[in-house]
């Protein structure tokens, strides 16, 4: 030992300094580990993370106006939207030129439907005037102002030009404003008219119902987990099957089972009528409303609450409660002061997991929720597949994702993602 320190740095077998040799082997191990992870990481990044990020980008992207009407957008800069007067001939000429080009490329209807989200009626206006503008010649037919107004009254409406000017920016906050029931106007962000404000309410309902579902899951899961954690292993393993079977059963099977149970002619109503608790003509309405969604989702998410709670409760030593009792604590004090505080990590882990899953649920609300029991996800799906307002869908999705990621971060801090257990 002393010899080595005296004669310079310690050497490895091949003559390089030991420190260097160790560092090299450590680096090699790191690289090997990364090489094992790399294919999967790339796969997930490419086919999951990037698609989602690019979807998020759609919520602010708004190139369509400036791409379809490039000359008009330049001219609109010179027009004072506040003046209350129509734009001058130069703008109409630019617009006619743009439109003729757009009609050739069949882009004008797309622009029409984009602007229709902001001002109802613009879609048909673009379609109708498109057919006539096609026949105009951008050089010979000047001046255009009167001709265009003749083709469609809308081109003589200051409001229409104001809408086009407002939404001519390539990056817009308009979709996000729409997502929180506001709109982008020349005067800045303003609240939507009373009858169009549905999304804030829907967000509120999603949060509220997710909270109720989480709450009822806690209430139902706590006794079960307590029982499972305190029974002898052999019995609790048998009972665990009753928890795991629903967990492994297809989501659609459970949802259809609830449809069978909750219908007007369903099992629950039939039994209640048979027992005489409910009159035949006054059957309970427990499906296609919030109640249906809450009860079905509580059932579906209950295993996700029981499993983390159970694994925490298993580690609580029974000697603590016995010690408390031997020192004169009542049953209630023992539970509340000794057992319950130790089980809180389980409640926390389960609650966050259930809440995260509940807030983004789509299938079950769609089938048993009717119109009153749907979540924000159903609205997103509607905008993607029916109304085709993808920008708004992306904005709603971004907000939902932000909430979920925040909760995910909390979950990681409290529980740690490494500690997630399945089955």
């Amino acid at each position, binding site marked *: 030992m002393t010899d080595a320190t005296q004669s310079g740095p310690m050497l490895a077998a091949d003559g390089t300094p030991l420190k260097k040799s160790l560092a090299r082997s450590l680096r090699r191990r790191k690289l090997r580990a990364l090489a094992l992870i790399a294919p999967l990481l790339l796969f997930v990044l490419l086919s999951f993370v990037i698609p989602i990020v690019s979807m998020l980008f759609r919520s602010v992207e708004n190139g369509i106006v400036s791409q379809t009407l490039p000359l008009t957008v330049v001219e609109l800069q010179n027009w004072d939207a506040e003046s209350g007067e129509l734009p001058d001939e130069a703008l109409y000429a630019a617009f006619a030129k743009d439109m003729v080009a757009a009609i050739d490329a069949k882009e004008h209807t797309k622009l029409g439907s984009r602007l229709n989200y902001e001002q109802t009626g613009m879609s048909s206006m673009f379609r109708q005037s498109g057919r006539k503008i096609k026949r105009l010649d951008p050089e010979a037919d000047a001046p255009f102002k009167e001709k265009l107004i003749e083709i469609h009254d809308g081109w003589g409406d200051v409001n229409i030009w104001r809408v086009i000017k407002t939404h001519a920016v390539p990056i817009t906050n308009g979709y996000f404003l729409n997502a929180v029931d506001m709109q982008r106007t020349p005067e800045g962000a303003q609240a939507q008219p009373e009858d169009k404000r549905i999304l804030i309410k829907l967000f509120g309902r999603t949060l509220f119902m997710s909270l109720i579902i989480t709450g009822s899951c806690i209430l139902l899961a706590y006794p079960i987990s307590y029982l499972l954690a305190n029974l002898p292993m052999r019995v609790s393993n048998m009972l665990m099957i009753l928890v795991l079977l629903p967990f492994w059963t297809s989501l659609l099977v459970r949802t259809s089972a609830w449809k069978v149970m909750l219908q007007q002619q369903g099992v629950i109503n039939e039994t209640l009528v048979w027992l005489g608790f409910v009159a035949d003509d006054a059957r309970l309405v427990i499906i296609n409303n919030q109640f249906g969604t809450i009860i079905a989702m509580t059932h579906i998410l209950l295993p996700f609450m029981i499993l983390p709670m159970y694994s925490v409760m298993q580690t609580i030593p029974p000697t603590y409660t016995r010690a408390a009792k031997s020192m004169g604590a009542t049953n209630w004090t023992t539970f509340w002061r000794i057992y319950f505080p130790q089980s809180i990590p389980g409640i926390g882990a389960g609650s966050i997991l259930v809440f995260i899953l509940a807030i983004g649920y789509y299938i079950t609300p769609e089938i048993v929720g009717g119109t009153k029991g749907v979540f924000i996800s159903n609205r997103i799906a509607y905008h993607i597949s029916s109304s085709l307002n993808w920008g708004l869908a992306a904005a709603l999705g971004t907000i939902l994702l932000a909430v979920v990621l925040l909760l995910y971060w909390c979950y990681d801090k409290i529980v740690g993602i490494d500690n997630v*257990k399945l089955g």
Partner: protein
Amino acid sequence: MAALTPISRKPLSVVLPTVAIAGGFLGMFVGAGQDNVLLGIVIGAALMAGLAWLYINVLDNERVARWITILGLAAIGFFFAGITGLIVGLLAGWFFAFFIFWLYEGRYRQKLLPYMTAGQVLWHYTFRVICGAIFVFLITPILVVLPLSFNAQDFFTFTPEMLRLDPEGYSLKHYRDFFTNNEWQRSFKNSLIIAPIATVISVTLGTLAAIGLSQSHVPGRRAIMGILISPMIVPLIISATGMFFFYSDIGRFLEGTLGMNKNFVGYVKVVLAHAVLGIPFVIITVTATLVGFDQSLTRAAANMGAGPVRTFFKIQMPLILPGVISGGLFAFITSFDEVVVVLFVGSASQKTLPWQMFTGLREQISPTILAVATILVVISIALLTTVELLRRRSERLRGLTPA
């Protein structure tokens, strides 16, 4: 220890009212069948209390009393409701014969600690009943589906024939429909194509990554783990939306530029999308198995001259195999059960079983769904059993005490 608790007979003033309440509860159901609930409750309560009094004061022979109750109630049940009534009567008779003596002899204290007060004993059993009710809530919806799938009618509810256990009320026609209907068969076949391939992809990549992650000194381990688990956390509708845009671009590229078959590209898209969704499950289960893996085994193998590949297949793989398989089963069920993403990414020719069920539930409700549901429940029972057996095997292999 607990079995040593001394037990003593309880006074009639406790036994009779309790038995009467239980009897009234049973009477309520019988009464409901005869359209007179109130009368049913009264008769049931009186009958049971009377029987209890008779057994305790006059008969005093538990074995005889048990047979009297079981046969008597079975006869009453058969008289009112045929075969179904007979079965219910047998079960009820068995319960009451047990219940009366359980209370009277004080057997309910036998397995409890001797110093528990009456209130504590009552709470103990109330708690059991509450838990039982929650278990019923958990399992009933699944159990209800099973008999309904044999319904001879096209209803989603129990017909009188079914309740009478009349063979006329049952049939296999919904199963026949499932196995002969082209739509269902095609979607079933699609599910069987897509799920295994997606599982193989996620298991291969996932296992490699989990082995990498389990080594010490991985830079940015937490962040990588966060990214790899995220497909499980991000709401499906958002993943589906993102993939919808992404895969339609990819699909256009593959079909347009490379000139691939449209149908084939459709399958590739769905398989890749499902593979991503299954990855978190593989990562979680395999990392959990690797926590107990003894790294000195690989060092020993290397010491004896095995290369990394040989070490992996001969030493590491057999030991972590149970974790890999159960991760694979999770990935399989995720893909097999997935609707949202396939709804957005796939086209009609990739229609999977859950998709078909989803449209069936939303639009025209056909009872074939219940037959499919039953088949899926049977599959999930098989998977659950496999996972449970694997978990035990894994714990045994790793030298932990089997649970």
